């Protein structure tokens, strides 16, 4: 990883040289780019990147997704998906020591660096919605496609869904943002369904971590919990550095809360909160809590927690090959984070879009990087790719067309999927399996 970072400028130069070489070679007409094109005449190197939190408090979030995305690139090169062209892979870490995890400022800096590298045509990332808020404008201005495997805040794509995010101002240029996961509107509806219909709770206490994602999810949970007939007995909004939740737990208990909802990430206290709650009071959370960090922070109190997260793909037949390959490459089973196959699919969708652009351009990458990037974005808007997690396709906003979330409970010392839930346009939640 360090090597690839150091090599970034070199890669950029190589990429530019390669692209200009391609440009000159387009004079030779090739066989028309149909589906069966082998792209054998394609020449050059195209760079794809990931931007994920890899260190600090998020060290259990980013790395599996990064590995999956890297695997997709390795496989594409091995299978000659782009024919004679090769893919270069660059990995960026948006975590900093200062923030002990994901840092929006670092994410924006990473995107500025990636954008100025003309060989980069698309990025998979980021993981956190707060980082996305900082990165989307940079990507938008530079026409750079970005596919998030994990952002759930609806305000990133849908105008007027989150008072804290000015969606319109996120896109000063082209709309280049996509995501392969559903939004917190759906997640909020599903969490409320779980709390009110499955667990029969009527009183909930909600705590958030003051971040874009956590605050947003908490707001949606509160909204739908109230709509489903429940009462929010109290709320708290605490910074991610909070280590002591005793005051809020006592407050929740005195108000008769049957469950404490946490909108936020494990790095911001989801598991620490659990460790300070009485075992008899359950905790409910979103996808930010579903990781090993939660389990280690919660300690002996981890049991009795339920969270929703990305739809579980570990039992899908479409994902069998991915998990086998992941295991043989990294010697890990890849099921630690449900987001892992989404990193793989996001990268593969990007590669497919790049391929489509090359095919349409007479089997050569467009010589002008701006044209190339714009074409990749256009291709992503109409892509329909059968990936490990199902069909990857995006609507006009860049959101995934199949949105759902799985409910996870702790089984022994690991998160285990309990069921998959989906919500329709009217907000009606159904258990899909």
């Amino acid at each position, binding site marked *: 990883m360090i090597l690839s970072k150091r090599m970034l400028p070199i890669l950029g130069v190589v990429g530019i040289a390669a692209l200009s070489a391609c440009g000159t070679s387009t004079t030779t007409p090739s066989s028309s780019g149909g589906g069966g094109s082998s792209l054998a005449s394609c020449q050059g190197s195209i760079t794809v990147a990931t931007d994920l939190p890899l*260190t*600090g*408090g998020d*060290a259990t979030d980013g790395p599996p997704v990064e590995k999956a995305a890297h695997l997709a690139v390795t496989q594409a090169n091995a299978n000659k998906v782009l024919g004679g062209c090769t893919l270069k892979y660059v990995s960026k870490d948006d975590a900093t*020591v200062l923030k*002990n*995890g994901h840092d929006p400022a670092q994410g924006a800096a990473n995107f500025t660096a990636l954008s100025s590298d003309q060989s980069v045509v698309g990025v998979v990332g980021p993981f956190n919605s707060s980082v996305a808020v900082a990165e989307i404008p940079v990507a938008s201005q530079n026409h750079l496609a970005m596919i998030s495997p994990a952002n759930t805040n609806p305000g990133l794509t849908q105008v007027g869904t989150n008072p804290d995010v000015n969606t319109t101002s996120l896109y000063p240029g082209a709309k280049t943002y996509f995501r392969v996961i559903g939004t917190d509107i759906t997640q909020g509806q599903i969490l409320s369904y779980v709390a009110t219909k499955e667990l029969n709770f009527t009183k909930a206490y909600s705590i958030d971590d*003051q971040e874009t994602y956590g605050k947003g999810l908490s707001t949606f949970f509160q909204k739908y919990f109230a709509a489903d007939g429940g009462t929010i007995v109290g709320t*708290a*909004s*605490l*910074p991610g*550095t*909070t*280590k*002591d939740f*005793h*005051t*809020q737990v*006592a*407050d929740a*208990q*005195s*108000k008769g809360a049957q469950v404490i909802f946490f909108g936020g990430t494990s790095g911001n206290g989801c598991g*620490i909160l659990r*460790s*300070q709650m009485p075992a008899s009071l359950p905790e409910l959370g979103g996808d930010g809590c579903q990781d090993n*960090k939660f389990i*280690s*922070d919660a*300690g*002996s*109190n981890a049991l009795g927690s339920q969270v929703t997260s990305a739809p579980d793909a570990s039992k899908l037949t479409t994902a069998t090959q991915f998990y086998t390959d992941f295991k043989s490459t990294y010697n890990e089973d890849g099921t630690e984070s449900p987001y892992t196959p989404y990193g793989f699919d996001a990268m593969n969708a990007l590669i497919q879009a790049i391929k489509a652009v090359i095919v349409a351009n007479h089997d050569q990458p467009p010589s002008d990087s701006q044209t190339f990037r714009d074409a990749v974005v256009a291709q992503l808007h109409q892509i329909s790719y059968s990936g490990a997690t199902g069909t990857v396709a995006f609507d006009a906003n860049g959101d995934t067309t199949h949105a759902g979330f799985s409910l996870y409970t702790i089984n022994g010392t690991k998160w285990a999927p309990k069921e998959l839930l989906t919500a329709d346009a009217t907000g009606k939640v159904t258990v899909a399996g």
Partner: protein
Amino acid sequence: MSDESPAAADGMLVDQRGLTSRSHRGAASSPAVVATSTVLRQLYSLVQRYFPQILVAGIALSILFVYTTGGLTLMGEQIKNALVLGAIYALVAIGYTMVYGIIELINFAHGDVFALSSFYALIIATSFGGFVNSLATGSGIGLLVALVILFVTTMAAAGFTGMAIERVAYRRLRDAPRLAPLITAIGVSFLLEGFMLVKFGADNVPTKNDLWITGTALTLGKVSIAWTDLFVFATAVALMFTLGAFVRITTLGKAMRATAQDRNASLLCGINVNRTISATFFIGSALAAAGGIVYSLNYHSIQWSLGYRLGIIAFTAAVLGGIGNIVGAGIGGFVIGIIYVFGGQLAGGEWSDSLIFAILVIILTFRPTGLFGVDVTTRA
């Protein structure tokens, strides 16, 4: 600005006259300004004079308000939470106050010594094949032995760390301008944080001591008090009384008080000043280590950056109690704990930190000597 100049007779000048000379007030061109300033001045002196009473009344009102709005159980739970939190603040605050008392230095590295010693405790508990850990979870007697081993070794290790910091970073600067040791203190603070970050990682480190002390000790009404709560509180109070007795009774304690009063005179009396100051750092750091141990037994996870925020809160406790005053720091710790928890309950947890530092500003403006502060010369 000159009083003689008629052109300068604006509101501000009148205001100044009002402050210095009462006879001019009636003739002032802007009576509203004067009236406001008089009221403010009276208010200021009132707050200054009755600061402890106002503070106690404020706290009592907050507790009463929580009682009336949330009921007895909530009030009891929060008092328990406040005392547990306060006990940890108090143990750390004593180190700040002792060092200030004896060499008039705000030892900003102290919070990081606290965090570092919680890592010492973790290392001691898990090394030798987890001997101490298995001892602690084995039986009641085993737990007692394990705690004694843990407290003695960790406090000694932290004590020597504190002595080393004083020897390296502060001793040579003892007669340098005030600012110099303050800057080295900040330097040492960052050094320790950097060391912990590299050595133990950026993440929360689970201490895996959840099973050391478990269960509920007693239930008062509907408030259940866990053994850990009781343990944290009792440890803090016991250590504070021990320290109080130590400073009052022993020769070294007497030497510490003498050095605090007048270092040069102490030297003339044959007191080994360097050794006395070293001992002060040792004791202060050892108490921070005790704080670190009870913290890790209560929260079960520690982090490199822990000492920064907690250190400044403990420093506020020391200032509130009257910096240099050991008993004051102990009480200040508990008061800050109460303000933190009840402020969080009433205003929302997101305001707790702001509230604490607002208190710091208020104390320094209205009552720089704190609740129990006395003249510099009698500090110890």
